[in-house]
């Protein structure tokens, strides 16, 4: 019975033990639970914590032969090079710009969609709309990107076919830097808005129906119901998700951007993560790009912590 969860409390409340005696006792008492944790923590240590130490090559001149530890220290040299590099400054600007427009457009879109879907009384039509707008979420960005290439094809994609039939000039969308960021934003909207609306629809379904009845008796119309009943019911969810989005502001969508970009549009298409991949792994400049990664990670961490603090200040469930 030594392992029983029931008898554990008596062991703790009983005699005082030295720290190590208590430690060994706990280890033995809960041995099966700790045993379960061994593999998961081997995973966390190797693939999550060990790479954190690897960040020190941001301050070293990394040489393959000498390894991470043997390489020579260079202080903040890589950071200086990074922030003097016009290419990296452009990358930063692109990242912030895409992040900002994603926040402005892709954040409110699912809320509006959910409010409208909620107005549909015809159940079959409602199910039809929901089914259609959720589908793209399940397809990979590779597939969706290929579809975009086809749809926006300069010679014979549907968008240019329509443009031509309206007498407009055909556009080579994927070769013009000016179109890249709009394509990223619009394709995120089309692919993910439906899916993101689910959480709002679920929250709407928890709003007390008597609130609507009372408002209708008071003579509220559709928009007043939306404004004074549905939206306040959604407020918590909206603020929570907004704060979460702020916390992950710099995660602009590595996979999406990597798949959509090409050399012709790199000046507006390169973001921090794609820069790290291209310069770091492809050109093997590990130390220099680790500095960029460390910068990205630290900014991200500060944003997440600020967002969490803000959530708690507002009495919302924090991120953690």
């Amino acid at each position, binding site marked *: 019975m030594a*392992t029983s*969860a*029931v008898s*554990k409390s008596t062991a703790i409340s009983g005699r005082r033990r030295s720290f190590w005696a208590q430690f060994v006792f706990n280890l033995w008492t*809960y041995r*099966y*639970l700790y045993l*379960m*944790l061994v593999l*998961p*923590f081997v*995973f*966390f240590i190797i*693939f999550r*914590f060990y*790479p*954190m130490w*690897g*960040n020190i*090559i941001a301050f070293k001149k990394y040489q393959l032969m000498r390894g991470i530890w043997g390489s020579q220290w260079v202080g903040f040299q890589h950071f200086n090079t990074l922030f003097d590099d016009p290419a990296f400054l452009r990358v930063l600007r692109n990242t912030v710009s895409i992040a900002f427009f994603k926040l402005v457009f892709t954040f409110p879109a699912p809320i509006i969609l959910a409010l*409208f*879907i909620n107005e*549909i009384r*015809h159940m079959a*039509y409602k199910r*039809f*709309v929901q089914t*259609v707008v959720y*589908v*793209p979420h*399940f*397809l*990979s960005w*590779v*597939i969706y*990107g*290929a*579809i*975009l*290439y*086809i*749809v926006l094809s300069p010679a*014979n994609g*549907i968008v240019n076919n*329509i443009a031509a039939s309206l007498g407009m000039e055909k556009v080579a969308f994927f070769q013009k830097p000016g179109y890249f960021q709009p394509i990223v934003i619009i394709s995120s909207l*089309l692919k993910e808005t439906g899916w993101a609306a*689910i*959480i709002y629809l*679920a929250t709407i379904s928890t709003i007390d129906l008597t609130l609507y009845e009372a408002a*209708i008796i008071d003579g509220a*119309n*559709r928009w007043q119901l939306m404004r004074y009943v549905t939206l306040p019911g959604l407020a918590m969810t909206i603020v929570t998700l907004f704060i979460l989005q702020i916390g992950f502001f710099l995660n602009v969508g590595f996979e999406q951007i990597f798949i959509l970009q090409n050399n012709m549009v790199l000046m507006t298409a390169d973001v921090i993560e794609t820069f790290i991949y291209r310069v770091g792994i492809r050109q093997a400049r590990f130390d220099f790009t*680790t500095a960029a*990664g*460390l910068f990205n*990670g630290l900014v*991200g*961490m500060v944003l*997440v912590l600020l967002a969490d603090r803000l959530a708690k200040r507002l009495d919302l469930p924090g991120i*953690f």
Partner: protein
Amino acid sequence: MVASRSFRFRLESILIYLGLGIFAFIAVTPFLHTIARSFSAEAPILRGEVNIWPVGFSFDAYERLIIGGTFWLAYRNSFMITVSATLVQMIMTILCAYPLSRTYLPGRNILMTLIVFQMIFPPSLIPFYLTVREVGLIDSWGSLIWPYAINTFNMIVLKSYFQALPRELEESAIIDGANDFRVLIHIMLPLSVPVLLTLTLFYVVANWNLFLPAIFFINDGNKQPLQVILRDMIWSMQLATQTASADDFERLAGMEALKASSVIIAAIPMLVAYPFFQRFFIKGILLGAIKG
């Protein structure tokens, strides 16, 4: 209710129905266009006559793909990766979530703090890549499985679920002499089937759609998953059509339809599984909404 049946209300309803219909139509048009192209003859595609309905109906592109055979390799690779990765991920996620859901476990807070810390400060790409290389996983499917063995969000969802199950179940089993492994396997897991199924589906979709890890870690063309093979095919066809001269016409014959049908063939497994996924995913996203 009388007032709300007014003309204005009806008009607004019609506009809302119409607006949503248009949004749904725009969202689905890229797919319709791609499907239409895949079933069309090449000439009408090149003339820009194919929009959302096939012109000069033809199966040629699909025939070429099926005979060509690249897709069987791609399917096979992605299938094997998805099955093995999902198995590993589910086992690891359960093994991690259950002990951490036992609030009485000494040291639990320290372990949770560590896990939250790696969540806010995820490893950046280069050190992560160097680690995978040091472990010797480059160019093996292991590099797509082990470095991604636990998704922390999924693990926390499962942990919260276990935590919400009544303590008495565990206590009575322990009094009957069961150890924690038996409690987990015979009591906790059977009670968690819906959430386990949802997490499995989350992992399956992520593994099937897996792309970047393969780009980072796999160079061997025979080991690439479907997504990478599809991308390479599309890119080489894109390049071929862009750089083609007039005498290349023979070689390029059917390239546009081929591009479209490759995309459709790659998308089919997900589209077939979608109705099944839709149900469980929606449940899953609601589970995820419960704070960890």
